[in-house]
């Protein structure tokens, strides 16, 4: 009887508390999480960081086949290796290659693809994932990949599953001309097709930003027709110019890499996942003397300034990470760290840049954990209610346990 009385009283108390709290808390609750989420993205954007993507994808296309186009295969595989090294996983890379040079009967070094004269680095290796190989590399498949309009039987590994917070790196190489690119010797894709595909992607919110790089003859014409926002494009040569190969290997017997891609990859070799180098740094290294053609950059559709756009925004799989450790004496400031753990060996200038950012970031984020809402009173009241809720239920459960266990 006494038990019944006490439990009914506590039940009534709890019901009244619950109704009081629920009417107060539900109204403000739906607004707060969105503010908190937006705050998380913009909190550490600051004056230094301007990116707002959450995932990275890469579409690497080599549109030629046959042995004498070895260098185009090496271009695409070199980009593939770099992009993987900087953190984009295989699941986020669509690699389209004719894939007929590594095991070609004319290849003196079977199952290898090299990109320099001394054959020092095998790009083919044991661990590459080619998504579209051989005769699957067609204009139709390329446009279907970009726009996502595929038959439902197409497996996930062949789909570009981007969303509106994805940064996509599109790299194309092969034989091209004025506003066209030749696909596997029997069809061509035009600059208008690419522009329309990108517009479809924009309409369907399939990208946050695109970085389009193309290494063919008269490459700059291929991005001249793009009209969708947030696209940065670079090509290897102007209209009327050829793009040249870089070097031959005497034992392989054909040209192994193209000049533009060679210099871009050489630049990327100096970068790791924590690099703070920007697109402007990359474009500053372009010169006619080195590349033997005039590389072009199209940034009028791109919203952010190039000197604040990091290379790893497109070529790396880098995400915003907030480190929380209750034991740490000082709160760890968040900085753009990647999904994986420590970098291999940051160069001095990168380390200095990271340190400077840590020091500046410290001031921004220390001690600031509550979401910033419209009014301070609102947020503090909401925080108070949440603490009350947690303590209230803990008190009720703890009190019930204590009373019942110790009674009689």
């Amino acid at each position: 009887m006494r038990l019944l009385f006490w439990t009914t009283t506590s039940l009534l108390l709890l019901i009244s508390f619950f109704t009081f709290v629920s009417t107060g808390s539900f109204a403000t609750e739906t607004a707060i999480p969105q503010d908190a989420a937006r705050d998380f993205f913009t909190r550490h954007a600051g004056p230094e960081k301007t990116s707002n993507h959450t995932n990275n994808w890469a579409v690497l296309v080599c549109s030629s086949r046959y042995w004498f186009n070895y260098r185009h295969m090496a271009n695409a595989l070199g980009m593939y290796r770099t992009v993987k090294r900087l953190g984009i996983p295989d699941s986020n890379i669509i690699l389209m290659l004719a894939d007929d040079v590594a095991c070609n009967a004319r290849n003196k070094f079977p199952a290898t693809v090299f990109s320099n004269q001394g054959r020092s680095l095998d790009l083919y290796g044991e661990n590459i994932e080619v998504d579209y190989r051989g005769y699957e590399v067609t204009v139709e498949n390329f446009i279907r990949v970009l726009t996502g309009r595929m038959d439902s039987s197409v497996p996930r590994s062949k789909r570009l599953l981007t969303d509106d917070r994805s940064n996509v790196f599109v790299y194309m190489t092969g034989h091209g001309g004025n506003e066209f690119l030749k696909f596997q010797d029997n069809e061509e894709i035009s600059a208008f097709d690419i522009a329309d595909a990108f517009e479809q992607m924009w309409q369907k919110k399939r990208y946050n930003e695109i970085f389009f790089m193309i290494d063919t003859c008269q490459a700059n014409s291929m991005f001249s027709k793009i009209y969708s926002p947030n696209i940065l494009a670079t090509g290897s040569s102007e209209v009327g110019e050829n793009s040249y190969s870089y070097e031959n290997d005497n034992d392989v017997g054909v040209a192994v890499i193209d000049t533009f891609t060679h210099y871009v990859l050489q630049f990327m070799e100096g970068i790791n996942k924590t690099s703070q180098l920007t697109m402007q740094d990359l474009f500053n290294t372009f010169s006619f003397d080195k590349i033997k053609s005039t590389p072009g950059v199209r940034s009028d559709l791109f919203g952010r300034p190039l000197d604040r756009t990091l290379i790893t925004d497109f070529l790396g799989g880098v995400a915003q990470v907030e480190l929380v450790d209750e034991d740490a004496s000082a709160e760890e400031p968040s900085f753009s760290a990647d999904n994986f753990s420590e970098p291999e060996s940051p160069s001095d200038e990168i380390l200095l840049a990271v340190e400077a950012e840590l020091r500046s970031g410290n001031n921004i984020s220390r001690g600031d954990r509550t979401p910033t809402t419209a009014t301070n009173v609102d947020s503090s009241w909401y925080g108070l209610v949440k603490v009350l809720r947690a303590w209230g239920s803990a008190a009720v459960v703890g009190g019930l346990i204590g009373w019942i266990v110790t009674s009689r």
Partner: protein
Amino acid sequence: MDWREFRVAFPLLVSCRLLLALTPFVNSLGLDHNHQLSSPTNSYVRLQEGLFLFKHDIDPYAGGSFYHSPLYLSLFTTVLPTSRFVSRIVWTMLDVLGAWALVNIWRERQSVVRTSRDTLVAAAYLLNPYILLPNLALSTVSFENTLQLLVLLYACRRRPSPALLLAAILIHLSLYSALLLPSIALLLLSSPHSHLANPKFFTAYRHPNASLSTLLSYIGECVLYSVVLCLCCTVVAGGWGWVEKTWGVVLTLPDLTPNPGLWWYFFTEMFDHFRPFFLMVFSVHLLIYVAPVCLKFQHDPLFASFALLGVLGMFKPYLTLADPGLFLSMYSVFPEIFPYLSHPLPTTLLHLHASLLLPLFHSLWLNQGTGNANFFYASTLVLGMANGAALVDAIWAGLRIAIGGKESEDEGEIAVVQE
């Protein structure tokens, strides 16, 4: 004061466990992410994630990463801090409490104050690797095991209110523990003494003031406690979304992270239109065991609870190694069945096989990539066979003891008083 005496040995065991929990070496092992030691509903990593979301005013049950009960939310944001060091001490103290409860269950079964086997029983729980390792991995299954043992202890001591309250809390943490409610009710209405050698109908051994009305009052009390706890959970979670994400998760199995259980592989390859049917089959399958076990062991409800714990330790949806571990540790409370076990050696060897194969095939599948999921699934089947062998043997021996006739029993080697 012999070192084997319980008063000396138990603090020794406790200090051993504390030392083990606090060595820095254990941190480096990365046990938190081990799939054998914690599953999505009781992983420490997911608990931390839920607490982080809760503290930052995001509903932890809105996404698909947090499946713990809201009681954990309220506990860890108020009373217990979430730093790892304190967590290790808290988890070790939970195991110590569980071991103490097991020892007292053993003592209640004989109605004595102390026995010579107390240390052995405590060590069987504290040093059992199936229970030790998930505890080091800070899996919340330690909460569930300790609560389970406390419920059994209070039921043995015939104190219905604490037993039912702790059982209500346990059901909130792990829904399938509700399977033990009938046997706990039987235990409350009778006694924990060993009647295995002398089976009679329930009415012969029940407590004098046990009746249908007391049973109904127990049911009503348990329901009342559950309702109060439901309201508490709703208050903490700020809505009713927690029901779908805690109880609903073990019924609908949305998360198919590999674990040593038998459900996940089956449902990875299940076609969608068969899924509800097989989920129902798997859930109802567990219900099938309750009535027969309780009826067959109505003369010894503690043994019935033990058998049902074995069933749970085999067929829970999100199994960890601690669930069969509890069953194996409780074997030490029933030494009267040891002479009647028909295949103890194969059971031990099967468990040895399973405990060696599980981490090996898991690593081969997910770390090295030279194996595939079937390897790990095969090792979970071996674990299932090992658990099955242990359970079947226990039930066989529990029934066989009534016929008797084994020599060691006559020689008085068994310390359990048979009534």
